[in-house]
């Protein structure tokens, strides 16, 4: 089942979710590591090249994911979820998309603020657009760093909440994001 149904996430939504999650964590680790490399390190250029290239491709994936989400039914919340839990979950999901889009924009501006494009795996060059603003690359850099930690913090809370639903509430919240078919309500599907 590729598409979502009113009771289950389809395989496309599930793959896009985990692809985004793993890539975000990977980019965060790579980003933290690469900024402290010394000038003569073999990875001094390779690390940022990889970070930028993967970042641009992830931006494309997230935009596709948003479009896919718009064209698919949204599985209804589990009946065991309280109203405030549903509201918080919706808010967190929306915040993730906003933060990720802001991460892509700020990361893009760090590199392109003075007219240089971003080379993506020597495959194509994403051209610069907004240039000529004093210290734009510094502002973008600060935003990118603060948002990175925010995304990772929110991701940790999101993950812990999923584990809480699975192990403490024993509902299907986590399983729904792992298995692309309808599960019986309430329990772990056993």
């Amino acid at each position, binding site marked *: 089942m590729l598409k979502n149904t009113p009771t289950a996430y389809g395989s496309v939504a599930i793959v896009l979710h985990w692809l985004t999650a793993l890539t975000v964590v990977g980019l965060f680790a790579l980003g933290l590591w690469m900024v402290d490399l010394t000038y*003569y390190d073999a990875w001094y250029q390779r690390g940022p090249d990889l970070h930028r290239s993967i970042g641009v491709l992830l931006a494309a994936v997230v935009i596709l994911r948003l479009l896919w989400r718009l064209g698919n039914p949204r599985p209804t919340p589990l009946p065991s979820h309280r109203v405030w839990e549903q509201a918080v979950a919706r808010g967190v999901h929306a915040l993730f998309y906003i933060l990720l889009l802001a991460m892509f924009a700020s990361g893009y501006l760090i590199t392109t603020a003075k007219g240089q494009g971003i080379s993506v795996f020597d495959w194509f060059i994403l051209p610069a657009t907004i240039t000529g603003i004093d210290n734009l690359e*510094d502002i973008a850099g600060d935003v990118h760093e603060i948002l990175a930690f925010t995304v990772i913090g929110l991701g940790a809370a999101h993950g812990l909440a999923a584990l809480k639903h699975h192990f403490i509430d024993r509902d299907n919240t986590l399983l729904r994001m792992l298995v692309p078919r309808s599960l019986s309500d309430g329990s772990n599907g056993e």
Partner: protein
Amino acid sequence: MKKLAGILTTVMALSGAVLLSAGAQADNYVIDTKGMHAFVQFRVKHLGYSWLYGRFNKFSGDFRYDPKRPEASRISLEIDTSSVDSNHAERDKHLRSSDFLNTDKFPKATFKSTAYKPTGKSTGELTGNLTLHGVTRPVTIAVEHIGGGVDPWGGYRHGFEGRAVIMPDEFGIKMIEQLGPESGQVELFLTVEGIRK
């Protein structure tokens, strides 16, 4: 505080002007940053293989110059360090960081001359104090007087070019450790055209 400093500067400038008109013929010039006929540029070797050029886009200053008494020349220059521009956003961001210029902590670099010694018809040696990265050290600038006279718009101008070599490590910027021994030396090119006040 700023207002007080402004008033003090005005008072000092006025008393200076009075002293000037009474005494020497030296004229005061403001560096033409409005029309941007002035440049603060530098170059440093990349890996020892090529020259990397950059500049500071924002600065201001003035100088005093009397063709009859060149030894009385003096200059004062203030540079906004965060305006460093090497035509590459990521590198400029890195240059502003605490690894190099640390522009959040040291937003200004200044040069104030202490003496000028003519060495030829249009050349001289300007010594003064350069404050960079919060460290003040004496620097000697080789100066060439390029030309001067009336301009087509009713003003009067004089222009100079100065060259100096500094070791940023002496100012606490770890160039050699971070970029290698070939990048320890930075050449400065100061090109100024002044409009008589």
